């Protein structure tokens, strides 16, 4: 009897192309991890008392107050108006709707220097918005802390709109009808049925907008007067420290900002996971 060599019946197992894996890690290592590690090493070279002194110098604390305070107000403003805009885009039909939809993405697409230039002109005393505001209320916007707020509102506007939109679209009309049939008026339906479901998305959008506004530099630096203790934001302070060759202070304040980014990233992820628990499976796609 001739023995037939048994051919392996199994199909060749699919091996993932390992070169892509290697490119990914090499690239991440060189481009992202190396600068991050460098930053932490440099920050580690500063002695703890010195670090604390630089991180909490009166100048730095004043800049944190401007950056975080104004960003907080700006993201709250967008929390409210972002919901209104998302509602108009999803629930209403009106001419120019597509234009409105496209305009929402402009802060993402427009280079921040262009945004800063345009805002600082429009909200200056002879600008389209700044002139009426100054004539009517005596309010100066450009080159004051209100200008910082306008720039941060501009830059963080898309976030809430874009996080709320898909949730609002997936809400079932039946819930509102049921609520109305059970005797709720429109306000009750909105506050007790709709808003609780949108809340995680609004919160995630506010957090993303806040994080973005705190880190924003280009548009703010052009609309602010950049005077310390008045409207100087933390990123601008870092640049001023670098220009003064005060590398230690720049490193310390930079690592404070970096830590904030890492923490806010974790918080945003947490909010999104928490929000998905409410939405169930329908929003998965």
């Amino acid at each position: 009897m001739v023995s037939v060599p048994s051919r392996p019946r199994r199909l060749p197992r699919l091996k993932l192309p390992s070169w892509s894996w290697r490119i990914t890690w090499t690239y991440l290592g060189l481009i992202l991890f190396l600068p991050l590690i460098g930053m932490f090493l440099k920050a580690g070279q500063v002695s703890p008392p010195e670090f604390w002194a630089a991180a909490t110098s009166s100048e730095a604390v004043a800049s944190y107050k401007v950056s975080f305070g104004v960003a907080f107000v700006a993201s709250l403003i967008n929390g409210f108006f972002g919901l209104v805009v998302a509602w108009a885009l999803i629930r209403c039909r009106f001419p120019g709707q597509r234009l409105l939809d496209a305009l929402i993405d402009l802060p993402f697409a427009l280079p921040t220097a262009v945004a800063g230039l345009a805002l600082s002109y429009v909200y200056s005393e002879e600008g389209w918005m700044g002139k009426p505001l100054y004539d009517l209320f005596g309010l100066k916007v450009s080159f004051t802390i209100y200008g910082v707020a306008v720039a941060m509102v501009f830059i963080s506007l898309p976030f809430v709109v874009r996080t709320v939109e898909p949730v609002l679209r997936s809400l079932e009309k039946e819930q509102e009808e049921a609520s109305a049939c059970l005797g709720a008026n429109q306000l009750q339906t909105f506050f007790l049925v709709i808003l609780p479901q949108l809340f995680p998305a609004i919160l995630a959008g506010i957090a993303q907008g806040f994080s973005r506004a705190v880190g924003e530099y280009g548009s703010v630096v052009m609309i602010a007067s950049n005077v310390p203790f008045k409207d100087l934001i933390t990123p601008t302070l870092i640049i001023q420290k670098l220009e003064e060759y005060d590398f230690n202070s720049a490193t310390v304040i930079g690592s404070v900002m970096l830590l904030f980014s890492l923490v806010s990233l974790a918080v945003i992820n947490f909010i999104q996971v928490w929000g998905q628990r409410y939405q169930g499976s329908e929003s998965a796609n």
Partner: protein
Amino acid sequence: MTIVVPPLEDIQPPQWVKPTFSDRAKSAVPALIVVVACLYVGTVILLPALSVVVQAFAKGLQPFLDNLTNEDLLHALRLTLFATAIAVPANTIFGLAAATAIARRKFRGKALLLSIIDLPFSISPVVVGLMLVLLYSPNHGLFAGVINSLGWKIIFSWPGIVLATILVTFPFMAREVIPLLEEEGWDQEEAAKTLGASDWQVFWKVTLPSVRWAALYGLILTTARALGEFGAVSVVSGNVAGQTQTLPLFVEDAYKQYHTELAFGAALVLAGVAIVSLLLKILVEQILEKEKRALRADS
């Protein structure tokens, strides 16, 4: 006998039900929402965007065109295009490699790795620039010794600008392509492999065509951001007009020097690119949505 039921829409409330004031107020709510939304977006986004166009042509077409031939502006434009021309292909290769490596693999820490790839979006651009300075600065950088002995110049020169642009824009591609690959699954690639295709062939003939629109979408976002990057580049570039000044930096510099029309002229060039990228993005978005829907219908 048949009973004819009128369609629901034709049933009118009885004549004696007159709309009350609160009924009318309720029907005004959607209109109010639309008006508030439009006013808000109009004052915050539309007016500033329009002002760029109006200001750029404030003195007419000819001065605008003259501004565009400004020596420093042209140099800044060339440098911006140069940095973009390096950063975009590099990030495209990384993005596609990362997507094919990560999307269909299941491993511990996958979510963490995806967050790490997104990290440059949450770090302030100024901090990104600072990180590069601390690494490559010839006086204070960690690699100062190596760089000086090789005679390289990274900070205050074009390699720094390119590095900053790459670092700020690399997540776009991976983040657009990964979800699509995850959704598509492995079937087609497996079929190609069993038919004897090599890894390389599978990538070029199966994977890449299947994600081409998502990749194009990522490419548009990467390019738009690379052309407009300001914060990170301004830290590493030194901002010398005619040498290490990119177009966004030129806008700021011209504005600070009170060359307002020049600043708006350069800004209009950048805004034009942004608007074209926005329109392309909307177009590709629609194609992508259609493909995703077809994909779901198949599976």
